[in-house]
C-alpha cells in the first residue's frame, strides 16, 4: 500500500507544480465543446438534444490527451524500472499513478461539465446526472487509457496508435455516460445507467491495474 | 433478378477482391521473407 500512496502523492505533486498540462486539457475540452454549436447551428432544441453526447465525446478526447505522457517520462528516466524493482506490487503503485492522473484531468473535467451543459441549455436535473455520470465514468477512462498507454510505451507512432487502441475500448463508457444524461432529459430514470457505470468502475478498478502491471513488465523486458 | 443484381455483384465482387488482395499480400510477404533469408545467407557467405 505504501507504493500506492507514494506514487499517488508524487504524481499529484508533479501535476501541481506544472499545472499547464491540466489547464491545456481543460481548455481543449471547452474549446472543442464550443466548436460544435458553430458547426451544427445554434438551435436551442437541437443543442439540448445533442448536448450530453457532445460533452461526453469531448471529455473522452480530453481525457485521452494526457495519456501518452502518463508513463512516458517515468519510462525515459528509468523511474519505471526502479519502481518495478521495488518490493511493492506493480499493480499498487500503478493504481496510485492512475488515481493521480484522474485527479488532475478527469476530476477537473467533471467539475467543469455543468458549465458546458448550461451552454447547451440542458435542464438542471440533466446537469446533475451529467456530472454524476462523468464522476463515475472518467476514472474508467483513466484506467483503460493507462493500460493502452503502458502497452504503447516505446512504440512507433505513439499518439495515433494509442488513440486506435484506447478509443474503441471507451465505447461502453460513452454509451452509458451519455445515456444517463439523455435519459434524465427525456424524463426517465438515470439510475440503470449510473449503476452500470459504477459497476464498470468497480470491476475496472480491481482488474485493470493488473493488466497495466503486466503491460509495464512487457515494456521493461 | 428484379434489380438486385447490382447488390449481389457488389457483395460477391468485394468478397472476391478482398480474398485476392489477401492472397497477393501473402505471396508478397512470403517473397519478402525469403529475400531476407537470402540476404542473410549471402552475408554469411562473405564471412
Amino acid at each position, binding site marked *: 500500500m505504501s507504493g500506492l500512496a507514494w506514487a499517488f502523492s508524487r504524481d499529484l505533486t508533479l501535476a501541481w507544480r506544472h499545472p499547464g498540462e491540466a489547464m491545456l486539457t481543460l481548455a481543449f475540452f471547452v474549446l472543442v465543446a464550443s466548436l460544435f454549436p458553430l458547426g451544427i447551428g445554434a438551435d436551442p432544441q437541437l443543442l439540448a438534444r445533442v448536448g450530453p453526447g457532445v460533452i461526453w465525446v469531448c471529455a473522452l478526447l480530453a481525457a485521452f490527451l494526457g495519456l501518452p505522457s502518463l508513463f512516458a517520462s517515468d519510462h525515459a528516466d528509468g523511474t519505471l524500472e526502479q519502481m518495478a524493482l521495488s518490493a511493492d506490487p506493480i499493480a499498487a503503485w500503478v493504481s496510485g499513478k492512475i488515481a493521480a492522473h484522474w485527479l488532475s484531468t478527469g476530476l477537473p473535467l467533471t467539475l467543469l461539465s455543468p458549465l458546458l451543459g448550461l451552454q447547451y441549455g440542458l435542464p438542471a436535473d440533466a446537469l446533475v446526472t451529467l456530472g454524476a455520470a462523468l464522476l463515475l465514468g472518467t476514472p474508467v477512462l483513466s484506467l483503460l487509457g493507462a*493500460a493502452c498507454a503502458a*502497452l*504503447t510505451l*516505446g*512504440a*512507433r*507512432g505513439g499518439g495515433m*496508435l494509442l488513440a*486506435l*487502441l484506447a*478509443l*474503441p*475500448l471507451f*465505447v*461502453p463508457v460513452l*454509451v*452509458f455516460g451519455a*445515456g444517463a444524461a*439523455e*435519459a434524465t432529459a427525456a424524463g426517465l430514470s438515470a439510475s440503470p445507467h449510473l449503476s452500470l457505470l459504477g459497476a*464498470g468502475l468497480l470491476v475496472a478498478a480491481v482488474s485493470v491495474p493488473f*493488466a497495466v502491471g*503486466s*503491460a509495464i513488465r*512487457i*515494456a521493461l*523486458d | *433478378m*428484379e*434489380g*438486385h*443484381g447490382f*447488390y*449481389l455483384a*457488389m*457483395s*460477391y465482387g*468485394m*468478397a472476391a477482391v*478482398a*480474398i485476392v*488482395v*489477401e*492472397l497477393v*499480400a*501473402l505471396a508478397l*510477404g*512470403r517473397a*519478402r*521473407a*525469403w529475400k*531476407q*533469408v537470402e540476404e*542473410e*545467407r549471402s552475408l*554469411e557467405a562473405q564471412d
Partner: protein
Amino acid sequence: MNFFYFSSPSTFFRLAGRLAPAFFILAAVLAAAGLYVGLVQAPTDAVQGEVYRVIFIHVPAAWMSMFIYFVMACYGAMALTFNSRLSAMMARALAPTGAMFTFVALWTGAFWGRPTWGTYWVWDARITSELVLLFLYLGFIALSNAFEEPRRGDRAASLLSIIGIVNLPIIYFSVQWWNTLHQGSSIKLTGSSMHVTMLTAMLLMTFAAWMYAIAASLVRVRSVILERERRARWVRDLGRT
C-alpha cells in the same frame, strides 16, 4: 505423439508448409460446392427475392470475424502464460485474415441492407459491434508491428487481444442497450424461414471460410517464422521450396 513437438518453429514451419495447400484445396472445393448450392440450387426467397443470397458470404464472414478474434486471444493468452513464441506468431498471423473477414461482413451487410431495409448503414447493435471489432483488429495489427524488437510487439499485442476479448461482450451489450434506447428503425428478418438448401449452402460456405482462414494464417505464419529465424541454422540449411 509429443504435444510440444510441433511447438518448435522449425518443425511447425515444415508442418505448416505441408498443411497449407491441403487447406487451400479443401477451402476451394467447399466454396465451389457452397456457391453451387447457394446460387444455383437454393430457391428464391419468398420475401426478399434474389438478394438474400448475400447471406452465403455475409453470415460466414461475420461468424469467422468473431471466431478468429477468439482464437487469436487464446493464442495470445498461451503466448503470455507459457511464453511460447509460436503462439504469438500464430496470433499475429491470424489478425489480418480476421480483419479481412470483418471488412467483408460489414461491406456485404451494407449491400444487403440497402435493398432489404432501404439503407446501407444502420446503427444496429450487431453492425456497430462489428465496426468496433474491425478497430480492435487494426489496433492489434498496428501494435504488433510498432516495435523495433518483434518479441515486444508479440507480447504487447497478446495482452491487447486479451483485453479486447474481455471487452467485446461489454461493448456488444452496451451498444445493444444504446440501440434499444434510441429506438432505431425496427429491423428484423421476418417471414423467411430457412430452406434446407439455404442452410446447406451457408454451412458449406462457413466451412470454406474456416479452411481458408487456416490456410491463409499458416502461409502467413511461415513468413513470420522465416523473418524471425533468418539467422538460425535450420533456416540457412533450408532448401527453397
